[in-house]
């Protein structure tokens, strides 16, 4: 089977499975975890656009995600923005505005400086959510967010909401995969690898980093909105540094610079943290060790590691094209 055929078969089979799953008699708990997986994968893909294709390790991705979640919550509870489209747009705009401000500050630095400054920026937003009780509800967060209907479809059932998140995931995947293969995506890779030459060629390096950050925030904000509706609750933990760390871990585990790899990262993290926690309390330790080992020994992530192991199991020694790693 050619590589291309193998791809197509995998995608079609995966899509069919994802579509049929809620009707195969799996426990609702399982459907619910998968819904969460689609949402976290969207956020991680938005982060991979920055890390894998622009070389920006953004520790404030949770702030963009969480601002989207808070925007839809505050919009619904205070301003009666209760529609699906209204809530979604509300969250996206909040995330983009936040990213636009963050970018002005953070993109004055590069490399380690950018990392440290985004830690500080995330902390600002977390601090607001945690302490500005009159607006954010503080540690108690905001409850009473109801899932709006999408046109004629009622989303209050887990199965219905599963399909909404699956569709959002598929759409994000399609858009981001196109973006990274577009002429603009090529420019991003150039900016990631050799900004100095890009400037000499006439590219405004700052503008590309900035625009990529804004683009990424659209999807991070979308994921935040979906997450708020999923939990019907938002709290400071949604935009904490820990949440940023989770996105980073999902992105690294899946495979930097792949976009689609983040689905596998999200699957592993969500299912490990939920399934493993019923077996052992030490799931975080297990996850930490797996993560540590992947950073050390398989920097391409699961999408490189798994096919390699698979081929080795079948006794084949096939050269695997390594994923791009900054």
């Amino acid at each position, binding site marked *: 089977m050619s590589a291309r055929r193998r791809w197509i078969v995998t995608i079609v089979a995966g899509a069919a499975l994802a579509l049929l799953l809620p009707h195969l008699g799996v426990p609702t708990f399982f459907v619910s975890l998968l819904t969460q997986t689609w949402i976290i994968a969207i956020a991680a893909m938005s982060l991979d656009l920055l890390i894998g294709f622009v070389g920006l*390790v953004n520790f404030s991705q949770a702030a963009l995600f969480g601002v989207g979640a808070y925007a839809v919550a505050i919009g619904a509870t205070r301003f009666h923005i209760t529609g699906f489209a209204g809530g979604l747009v509300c969250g996206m705009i909040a995330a983009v505005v936040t990213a636009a401000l963050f970018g*002005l*500050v*953070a993109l*004055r*630095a590069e*490399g*380690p*400086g950018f*990392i*440290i*400054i985004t*830690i*500080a*920026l995330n*902390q*600002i937003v*977390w*601090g*607001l959510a*945690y*302490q*500005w*009780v*009159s607006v954010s509800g503080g540690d108690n967060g905001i409850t009473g967010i109801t899932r709006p209907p999408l046109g004629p479809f009622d989303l209050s059932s887990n199965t219905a909401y599963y399909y909404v998140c699956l569709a959002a995931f598929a759409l994000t995947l399609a858009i981001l995969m196109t973006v990274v293969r577009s002429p603009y995506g090529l420019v991003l890779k150039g900016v990631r690898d050799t900004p100095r030459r890009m400037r000499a060629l006439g590219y405004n390096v700052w503008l590309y980093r900035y625009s990529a950050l804004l683009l990424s925030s659209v999807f991070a904000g979308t994921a935040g909105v979906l997450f708020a509706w999923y939990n019907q609750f938002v709290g400071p933990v949604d935009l904490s*540094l*820990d949440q940023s*760390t989770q996105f*980073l*871990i999902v992105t*690294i585990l899946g495979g930097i610079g792949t976009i689609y790899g983040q689905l596998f990262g999200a699957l592993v993290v969500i299912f490990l943290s939920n399934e493993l926690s019923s077996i052992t*309390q*030490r799931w*975080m*330790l297990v*996850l*930490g*060790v797996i*993560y*540590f080992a992947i*950073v*050390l020994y398989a*920097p391409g992530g699961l999408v490189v590691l798994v096919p390699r192991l698979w081929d080795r199991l079948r006794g084949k020694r096939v050269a695997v094209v390594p994923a791009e790693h*900054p």
Partner: protein
Amino acid sequence: MQFYIQNALGGLAYGSLLFLIASGLTLIFGLMRIINLAQTSFYLLGAYIGLSLVTHGWNFWLASLAGGIVTMALGLAVYSAFLHRYHADPLTSLLLTLGLTLILDDGILALWGGDPHSISPPAIFAGSLTFGTLVFPVYWLVVIGISFAIAAILFLTLQRTMLGVMIRAAVDDEEMTRGLGVDVNRAFYIVFAAGALIAGLGGLLGGPITSAYPGLDGELTPLAFAVVIVGGMGSLGGALAGSLIIGLVNAFGKALFPELSYFTIFVPVALIMAFRPQGLFGRKL
């Protein structure tokens, strides 16, 4: 007036604790370009180890030293097993220290459980000082004194010893220093070990102020980074000044604007980072 003195003292005490964490952070970054996210986990680990020893009847100071030494051993083990290979690769080393944080946090949770522990200072320093209406714990002064003593030792080592000369040269220009035949790798080990030792030792020392609970490290990390940003990465003097500034801003921010105290710390920090990336006290990069 009383309000200001009270908060100023509390802020300085908290700030001098931050220095015990941030001094290692800034030296490790300045020398080997490793952003050590686990530095505050070292602090927490030191606190728990020290606490266990104290409950087994150890002397407070010895227990805190032991906490530092165990933490240092762990730090050295991780550094020599994994991290030393990535000193020129800030991303991978950052990701590894992040992994280390996850593992340490959960390990601590497994060993010591999730309940917060308050830690009492040694009995002779347990009291309060009273000046008129002003009342504050004696232990605040002790912590400030110890941190300044450690700062003095670090400064003297950097300024007056051969090792210090090597470290300063390597911070300035690693290639050149290697070219001169200096064993820079040895300096790396020593600095990483010292960073872990001081943070670990700080854990129990700071315990009476910060307590010890899972997640404390995650709360301290942004503050420690704020210190390094304000002071300038790689500058020990900057770390000291930055610690005190962040300590004071933190104390007054919490007292004056309880709803916005994170804002009052991190907005200036982000602006400093953006417009003066070398920090207030660092040299121009």
